[in-house]
């Protein structure tokens, strides 16, 4: 019996230690004014100037540590956010030579290291992306951003506060392109000796500076009190950025009080989050969840009746419900409030009878279905709930005689297929692809998908769509430098796009974010990027 006593004694002591440990534990205390954010990224976005991790990298690191020459207006939750002066006070295109853009730089702007922002700094940063012979050239940073300025030719210093950019062809989208190029301190790079070292102690002109960086674990940002725009000087003492890629882990971290704010809570967790006293903030932003259709020979989507029928068969309210209400039914590529909406006559709604009639006209029915194969992913940035949503659509389309087969691939593999195009072997004969898109700027929203010379692999016109009329409209937009006139032409592009049902559109995301009731002052802009300057902790 003494043996069993000793076994039980050991077990008892072990259990006792664990029990005492648990009893002693308390929820972590939060320092006043510290905002802790759980990001969806796997890692802290790169801090050396051009961030990785897509637009989340821009949102939490790029645009907090740095500024562009042109910034996005993130000050309002009501109006679509447009472009506003950043490190350039003004810019204009040369009326005699529309390939030349003059930027008048803001005076008196200091980098975090105290050095001055000027024309030399602009040239340094542009050379970093485009000039392979410059010591600061970084192929990795170039790979993250320079595709956004495809027509770049040169940049020239006129004086300390004036630079002139030259593009290969006239391009009215240039201001939208330059806003992704962030300005890092040349002096800090010189002191660091390499971008790897610079990343540990970066220096930009943004409203925050980097205080702590532990790869894959955390970044801590503190306010930059000398920011050139007083309205953007942060109110919080510190922002802690934590990569929490798993949605359950993010939700648990919020509910257990380890973070104050999480990005993209899982829709099924939102009721629980709300019932626990947290706020869920959302706002529609330039995002569209759609099926991008193949137009290569033999694709069933070449028949406009099939494309329109698919758009009429989808139960969008049901999908919004599936997403916990955190989505907006798509009426087109952009929302009806957008300046690029136009006046499409084809209305996206659920009308099964009309859809069936169109399918019958095309020679198909539920008994004699047309077969389509779609490439989709099980997860991915901006993809929302891709498997559940696609299966929902599969059922909707089966009702009208479209039999959908899915080729489910990993997210990166899906992007490979998207870049390679519908004709590529890796597309495996797919008739379309489900990649969600930004509609933040005209090029990202329309041009890259619809211009025939950007057919894969030259661009991401995945489906090899080609229409001379659309090409002409898109060319005209790039040659129209008056913003109002340009928007009017883009509205024509969108009208044509919807009326010809060039995509199967499903929903727009509204970017739900869950945060504690003590997080105040956040105004969700209608943008992929957000300002943290107005946020404070109560």
């Amino acid at each position: 019996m003494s043996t069993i006593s000793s076994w039980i004694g050991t077990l008892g002591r072990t259990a006792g230690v664990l029990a005492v440990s648990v009893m002693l534990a308390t929820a972590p205390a939060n320092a006043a004014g510290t905002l802790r954010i759980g990001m969806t990224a796997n890692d802290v976005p790169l801090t050396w100037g051009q961030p990785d991790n897509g637009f989340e990298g821009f949102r939490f690191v790029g645009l907090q540590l740095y500024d562009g020459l042109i910034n996005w207006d993130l000050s309002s939750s009501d109006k679509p956010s447009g472009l506003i002066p950043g490190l350039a006070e003004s810019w204009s295109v040369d009326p005699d030579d529309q390939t030349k853009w003059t930027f008048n730089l803001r005076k008196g702007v200091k980098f975090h290291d105290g050095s001055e922002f000027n024309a030399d700094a602009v040239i340094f940063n542009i050379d970093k992306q485009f000039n392979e012979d410059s010591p600061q050239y970084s192929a990795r940073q170039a790979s993250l951003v320079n595709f956004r300025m495809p027509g770049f030719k040169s940049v020239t210093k006129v004086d300390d506060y004036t630079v002139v950019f030259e593009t290969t062809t006239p391009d009215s989208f240039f201001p939208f392109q330059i806003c992704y190029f962030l300005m890092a301190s040349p002096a800090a790079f010189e002191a660091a000796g390499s971008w790897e070292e610079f990343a540990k102690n970066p220096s930009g002109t943004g409203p925050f500076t980097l205080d702590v960086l532990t790869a894959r674990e955390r970044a801590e940002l503190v306010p930059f009190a000398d920011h050139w725009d007083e309205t953007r000087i942060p109110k919080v003492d510190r922002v802690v950025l934590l990569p929490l890629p798993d949605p359950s882990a993010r939700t648990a971290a919020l509910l257990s009080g380890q973070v104050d704010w999480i990005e993209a809570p899982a829709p099924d967790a939102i009721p629980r989050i709300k019932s626990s006293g947290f706020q869920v903030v959302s706002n529609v932003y330039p995002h569209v969840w759609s099926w991008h259709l193949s137009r290569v020979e033999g694709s069933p989507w070449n028949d406009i009746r099939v494309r329109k029928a698919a758009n009429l068969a989808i139960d969008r309210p049901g999908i919004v419900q599936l997403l916990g209400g955190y989505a907006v039914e798509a009426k087109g590529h952009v929302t009806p409030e957008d300046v690029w909406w136009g006046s499409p006559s084809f209305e996206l709604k659920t009308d099964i009878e009309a859809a069936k009639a169109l399918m019958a006209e095309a020679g198909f029915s539920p008994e004699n279905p047309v077969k389509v194969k779609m490439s989709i992913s099980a997860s991915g940035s901006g993809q929302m709930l891709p498997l559940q949503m696609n299966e929902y659509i599969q059922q909707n389309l089966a009702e009208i005689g479209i039999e959908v087969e899915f080729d489910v691939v990993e997210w990166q593999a899906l992007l490979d297929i998207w870049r390679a195009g519908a004709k590529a072997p890796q597309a495996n004969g797919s008739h379309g692809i489900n990649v969600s898109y930004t509609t933040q700027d005209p090029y990202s929203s329309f041009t890259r998908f619809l211009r025939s010379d950007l057919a894969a692999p030259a661009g991401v016109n995945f489906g090899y769509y080609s229409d001379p009329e659309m090409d002409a409209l898109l060319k005209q937009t790039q040659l129209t430098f008056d913003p109002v006139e340009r928007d009017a032409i883009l509205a024509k592009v969108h009208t044509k796009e919807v009326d010809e049902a060039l995509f199967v559109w499903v929903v727009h995301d509204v970017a739900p974010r869950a945060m504690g009731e003590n997080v105040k002052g956040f105004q969700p802009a209608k943008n992929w990027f957000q300002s943290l300057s107005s946020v404070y902790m109560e």
Partner: protein
Amino acid sequence: MLGYIISRILYVIPISLGVTILAFGLVHIAPGDPLDAVVGADAPASVVEKLKADYGFDQPIPVQYARWLGRALSGDLGRSVTNNQPVVEALATAVPNTLMLALCATFLGFIVGASLGGLAGYYQGTWIDKVATGFGVTGVSIPHYWLGIVLVIIFAVELRVLPATGIGPGGSAGWQFDWEHIKHLILPAITLSVIPCGIITRTVRATVAEILSQDFVQALHAKGLLNNSVMLHVVKNAAPTVLAVMGLQLGYLLGGSILVETVFNWPGTGYLLNDAIFRRDIPTLQGTILVLAMFFVVLNLAVDILQTLIDPRMRRT
């Protein structure tokens, strides 16, 4: 015995070479470009080619292997293609975190497993045996990532007594052996200990039961030894087997805690591997697999040598 130890050490050389070939080759079998996951979606081909050349991905695979092996022998495992961090630096942060978690889990698993297994073996056929065996089977069968989520829901979300995620204030860089940090270790360690606990319970039970049925135990009883003294002999006889199993379990935990580290955002080698897999970070993947595999090789070597030292029968063979 010295000859045996030397021969075991010499065996490690071809095994290590094989490990390097597998660690390097396996990640190249996966389809797709090694840089697709890190370059921008519309990145021009010329920039991607330049980047490939920078990382040496433009060379034939055998050339890449030779260069990688040459660098690895001098302690350079390259740089991550995602965050440019030297792989050695990433491992220097991740390995101690995983080691700490794996040692705690193994220790917990060993204490609980050996106790339950000993009880079950000693009281074979009784309700104590049934309860302990049931626990062992449950431990082996339960998906530990699921258990991790359940523990998080109970202790972090509902009771709010333990943290749900991370390694503690300040991350790896600020780790200290104080309560603020140790409490982050509790849930992942318990979760990770469940499988070794189950395996050790079953192993110890079987070993103890077998030893108890041997003649020498009867002889010890006949000599009038107390139960405690008899158990001491049983434990000494069971130790080599249990040690071997524990060593293997520690090896598995060092390399196989991807799911638990991901659920708890524990910045160890499992988390590193998970990140590297999803972002196709080939240098990090290769370096981490190599280091983990070498851990396993060295651990097996240590267990073999330790067994030889404590078991005279093995010394004779």
